[in-house]
């Protein structure tokens, strides 16, 4: 079975670093981005199974990433994480078919479980 590809977008380096380290332990190929622009460009070149994105970012925000990914790459699942539990954002994200929505801090175990479920959907 081919290695699953996960993309992580967060404007704080530590989030991407930690996510990469823990998801690579699960055997995924992980790429991290500090903003959405280069991430979306990368999506044009390569297929990713799951995109984990921060909600609030400078420039293109997580909601736009969600919209772009779901319209252009319907097979790719999106998981959104946000600094504050923001109900409006969560509802909006759910309407846009987000796979999962986590307030930070995110328990890594739960993120891993969510990714696993997302990959089942993809399969």
């Amino acid at each position, binding site marked *: 079975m081919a290695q699953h590809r996960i993309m992580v977008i*967060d404007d*704080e*380096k*530590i*989030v991407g*670093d*930690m*996510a990469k*380290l*823990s998801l690579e*332990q699960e055997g995924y190929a992980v790429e991290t981005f500090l903003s959405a622009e280069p991430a979306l460009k990368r999506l044009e070149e390569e297929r990713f199974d799951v995109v984990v994105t921060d909600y609030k970012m400078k420039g293109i925000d997580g909601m736009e990433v969600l919209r772009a990914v779901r319209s252009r790459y319907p097979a790719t699942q999106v998981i959104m*994480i946000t*600094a*504050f539990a923001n109900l409006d954002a969560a509802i909006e994200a759910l309407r846009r078919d987000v796979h999962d929505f986590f307030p*930070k*801090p*995110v*328990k*890594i*175990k739960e*993120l891993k479980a969510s990714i696993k479920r997302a990959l089942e959907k993809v399969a």
Partner: protein
Amino acid sequence: MRQLMRNLQAFVQRRRARTPEEFQVLFSRFREVMDSNTRALEIITDMGDVLGGDYLFDIQYVRRSYDELDARVRNSLLHFTGLAAERQGDLEDAYKRVDDVIRQVLAGTPPQTGELVLPLGKFDGSMAAFAGGKMANLSEVKRSLPLSVPDGFVVTTRGFDAYLRHNGVFEKAGPLQDLRQSPLTWYEGLAEAVLHGDMPPELHRGLARALRKLQSRGIRNCTLAVRSSAGDEDGEHSFAGQFATVLGVPPDIAELEKAYRKVIASLYSEQAAVYQQRFGYDPLNMKMAVGFLVMVDAAASGVLYTADPAGRSDAMVVSSSWGLGTSVVGGTVDTDQFVIGRDGGVIRERIGAKEAMSLRLPGGGVGEMATPAERRSQSSITPDQIAELARAGTFLEDHFRGPQDVEWAFDPEGRLFILQSRPLMLAARAEEPVPVRADGTAGRITFKNAGIVVQRGIATGAVHVVNNDRDLDAVPRGAILLVKHDSPNLVRVMPRIAAIISDSGSLTSHLASIAREFRMPTVVNTGDATKVLARRGEVTVVLGEAAVVLPGRNAGAFGNAPEHAAEMNDLYEFRRKRYLLRHIAPLNLVDPFRDDFSPKACRTIHDILRLIHEKAVGRLVEAAGFGAGSSGAVKLDLPVPAGITVIDIGGGLQNVSGAGPVVPEQVASTPFQAVIRGMVRPGAWRTDAVPLTVNDFLTSMFRAPDLIAESARQAGANVAVISRDYLNLNIKFGYHYTIIDSYVSGTPRSNHVYFRFAGGATDLTKRSRRLQVIAAILEEQGFSLATKGDMIIARISNLNAEDMLARLEVIGRLISFTRQLDAVLQDSGAVDRAVAAFLGEGAH
């Protein structure tokens, strides 16, 4: 004298609440303190969890949590100030000190103030960002411990910044492109710019002044050791042996400056670059402080580990050699090795060959000479010196609260000097490789020595001999490195090799520290592996309790090799954020009877909360001591003649009508209920050893004059101040004076029992026996104890309500039990019998 008495009286009056109403106000303050502390500790626990590696978090979380924590601590301080009825200046200062450091870490900016040069001994570990971890610790040892540290000073990271700025070092080296592409030339450029730079005038003046001061203290014919002290703010990596040290520098400003340049340039050496990249340090933010220490004329020196780095036992490990310690930490000499108990007794020893020794040359510099033949087979340190090292190690470990890696030297007069103390990196807990087949170790290759396993693990690959540092460039990927000496320079190839085997070396060398950090399977001191394995081609190295080397690729005979898995801790950003916790979570003020419980001793938020808690309880105990004549006081009718008056400050009594006596059933205060249960328990008021009838005995006791209490307060002085969750009970029976203060709620962290027992008119021997009995019983119950003369203070906190109430019941029994003790404690054997009788009855 009369004036003094009046002053004392006034003091006591001020400290005491005059009425129950006044106490009620103080008590509500106390509860606020406890609630704030509890919430604060919950936040600390939560931060510890989230920053522990199991969560994705960002700086927003950290800031938000700390703001909330800050609010709770301030609230606690505010109410404690109200409770104490005086400003808590020292405590406020202590909090400001800790808070400042945390805010600096949060802001991600290093402190903006600070000297260019600081004298050693004038600052402590909190200055690590300025003085580097190594020198900050050493200065703290010099300042706070009864151990000798050489005289000296430190050029701070601020001095380093000034030097780099003055010489435009980063501008000269050009922009950092991609670190992975061509890092080394960029690093070389930095090193060049540093080596050929000029001293900024203010740094030159600072150095010259520090040198003059050193010389004015009578140290004229000294030479100096100039040592790196990298500003690795997290202190989690040893950087052992990664930077230059210049020894034997003459006390001349130009020489000092030359050495300074050389040391800070080593921050950008090739091997340091590899190390920094491995652990994600940003070269633009790396800073180096530099220590200038008066060199000790070392007769012998070495390294002490206060724990077995392989984690096999609680023994300490000493490596020692003649002369200066360079050969010990550099791993170039076959040193004397001792495994010692914490009492200093030698468990195992191995006298090394010590072929060469380094000595300080009087005119400057360091010379190496062959060790005189007769001294080679002689131990470089005496049993007394070993015991002294064990004592020093214990001091350092207690002080820094963890195993230490200590560099030390004995001068020709036998005086011990501490040259360094830093946290000991313990081996990563790799799974023990276990043979999965019976023939697992058949055909193993043997060496002259068994070898010392520094880092466990399994590796397989082709052997490659390295004779000197120049050979390092040719080391192929995946090689099993064979070296004669274990050199810290090997760090350059660590990212691409599979294991290290060396002929000499010790558990305590710099290489050993680094191998553990890289989790690189490493065995040292095999004696002749370079010869035996040189032409073996591929081998399999299995390092567990013992070292096993097998020919060929044979790893399949063993359980899965532990993965070289990267860990969260290897992420720089992660460590940096978690570093914050060091100023928040550790508790240094543990035992109020042993540790220094003062604001000055507080180093973390947890310390401050702990101190406030202890002081708040103490204040409450004092404040509750008002008389039984107060308004609202009612008598308590007990089946035993204890004569207690009760003052209810809220929810302590129920179904009360009128001012008549109350009965135990009306007591709603849970801590008081528990004490009463203990006091009236059948059997509590007698023991078979007492040859008096119960009534006679009790009568005699309550009739006895009270020599301790103020005479005015003597009558009916047994007072219980209670609320639903609180009890403060002052009891004077005969000559005995007991205070119990307890708060028991659903929140274990807020709960405490404070017990004080004092007085007694019997002779000293009996009194001390009585204390022994009480101490033995309370200790058995898990209390921490202090005795002072004829007084015993016991405390316990942080237990759930059920456990607290069980202890209060024991104390209730104890109050009754101790009434009779003096009469029966005729000989020392009676102590044991009395304790056994008490504990035995408790079991019924």
